[in-house]
Every structure is written in C-alpha cells, then in structure tokens.
C-alpha cells in the first residue's frame, strides 16, 4: 500500500512520530557538540596560541648568542612574533658597558669578571684566553657572516620583544643603565606568559 493511500489521521501520526525521533536524535547530537566546544574552551586551546617564538637566552658566549640571535631574527622574518628572555650569562648580549658606580665590592668583582657586552664575549669552546673569539670573528668576517653586536641591534630593530630578568640582574649587580635601551624587565611569570602561548620555545 502506498503512503498516500493511508487515512490522513494515520499519516499525521506517522509524521509526528518521525519528527519526534529526528528531533530527539539531533538534540543529543547538538548537546554533545556544545559540550565538546565547552571542553575545548576550558582547556585553553582555542585561540590562546599565537604565532610566537619564545627564547630563553641563558648562556653568554659568542657562538650560543649567535645561534639565539639568528633564530630570533629568522622567526621575525618569517612573520612570527618573538620574545627573548635574557637571564644570567645571557645578559651579556644586551650590555652596553660596565659601570662600577654605586656597586658593592662583590658586585664590582662580578662586573670585572663579566664581558662588557656582545663585542667582547668569549666562545663556549676553543676560547684559548681570548684568542678563540678573535679567530672566529676573523672567520665570520671572511665568510660575510654578520657580527654578534649587529645581530643584537637587528633583532631589536625587527621588533623582537626583549626582556631582561631582574632577579639575575640583582644577583650579578647589573644596573638598568648598563643594558641597551628600549627593553622590558620581568621575571619568570613574564617569561611563562609568553612561553605558554608560543608555538616554539627554546632554552639557549
């Protein structure tokens, strides 16, 4: 028997049952979808992550700083936002000089033992009492590789967010006037906030 041949009442009843069933099924489906969306939002994955790279610059040698600055400038060139956190020996990369004014004896001792800036940092290997850096500078110049101080200037010019760790500044007795201008100052939470929303995080 064809559906159209059924009495109107029966057809209306069948239609009502089907509509009810469809509604029940799809309601469950959309509920599940809403729940899933809520879960994703709660876990903080939705929209939190930026196209950002965050680097901790801990070591302060010519070669390691060169790697850090190269990655930072490359990331900026690739259109990424970049944050760099300079802590402990890494502070040497953003020093403009040494000052002894208003420092304690121990702070002056540390200042004497630290290089005065990216121009005078040692190499991590084959330093040979300062011969290493000179040798590598010669090699890099010969191969047209940008020098470290220029790279530090470059990353600042590219809009990389540079943050100096205030705790390590305090420990080493580094004053703000000894560091380059236009940088931010912060602590571990400042780093973690940027790192948590970054696709790339490095400790160099």
């Amino acid at each position: 028997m064809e559906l159209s041949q059924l009495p109107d009442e029966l057809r209306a009843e069948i239609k009502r049952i089907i509509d009810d069933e469809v509604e029940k099924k799809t309601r469950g489906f959309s509920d599940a979808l809403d729940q899933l969306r809520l879960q994703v939002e709660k876990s903080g994955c939705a929209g939190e992550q930026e196209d950002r790279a965050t680097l901790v610059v801990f070591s302060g040698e010519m070669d390691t700083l060169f790697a850090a600055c190269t990655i930072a400038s490359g990331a900026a060139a690739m259109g990424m936002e970049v944050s760099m956190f300079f802590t402990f020996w890494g502070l040497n990369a953003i020093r403009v000089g040494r000052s002894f004014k208003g420092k304690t004896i121990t702070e002056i001792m540390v200042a004497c033992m630290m290089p005065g800036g990216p121009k005078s940092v040692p190499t991590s290997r084959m330093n040979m009492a300062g011969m290493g850096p000179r040798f590598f500078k010669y090699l890099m110049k010969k191969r047209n590789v940008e020098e470290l101080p220029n790279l530090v200037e470059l990353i600042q010019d590219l809009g990389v967010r540079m943050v100096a760790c205030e705790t390590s500044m305090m420990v080493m007795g580094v004053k703000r006037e000894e560091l380059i201008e236009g940088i931010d100052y912060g602590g571990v939470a400042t780093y973690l906030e940027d790192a948590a929303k970054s696709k790339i995080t490095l400790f160099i």
Partner: protein
Amino acid sequence: MADLELDCKAISCPMPIVRVAKAVKSMTPGQTLEVQATDPSFQADIEAWARRTGNELVSFTTQDDVHSALIQLKG
C-alpha cells in the same frame, strides 16, 4: 622585470631572509620581488619563507653560484 630588485649577494644566513622580509614590508600585495643571493642555504630558506608567509616563489634559478628567486606577494 620585477617591481623591486634586492641584492643579497655576499651576505650569510639569516641576513638574506631578513632583508627579504624588510623589503616586503615596503611593497604592496601582488607585486613581484627579485632577490639575488649567494648564501648556500638560500634556496631552502626562501622556499620555507614563501610557504610560511603565503607568498609565491614563482621561479628559482642558479647561475655561477648566484641564486635568483622571483617572489610574487600574495594578493
């Protein structure tokens, strides 16, 4: 003839890519940029840069150790 020509010869990584990124900022969508470079990693780098930034690497040629890349900015 490209809208802008950029000479990145005799400079090393990361400078060619950085110079390209800086040049692109001064250009308008759809324009073309021709870059010449001698850095050995230039081909791999410019290809990755183009993929990442969504710009098109129209052509890449090498003659006498000089690489030449033609880039069309996304419209």
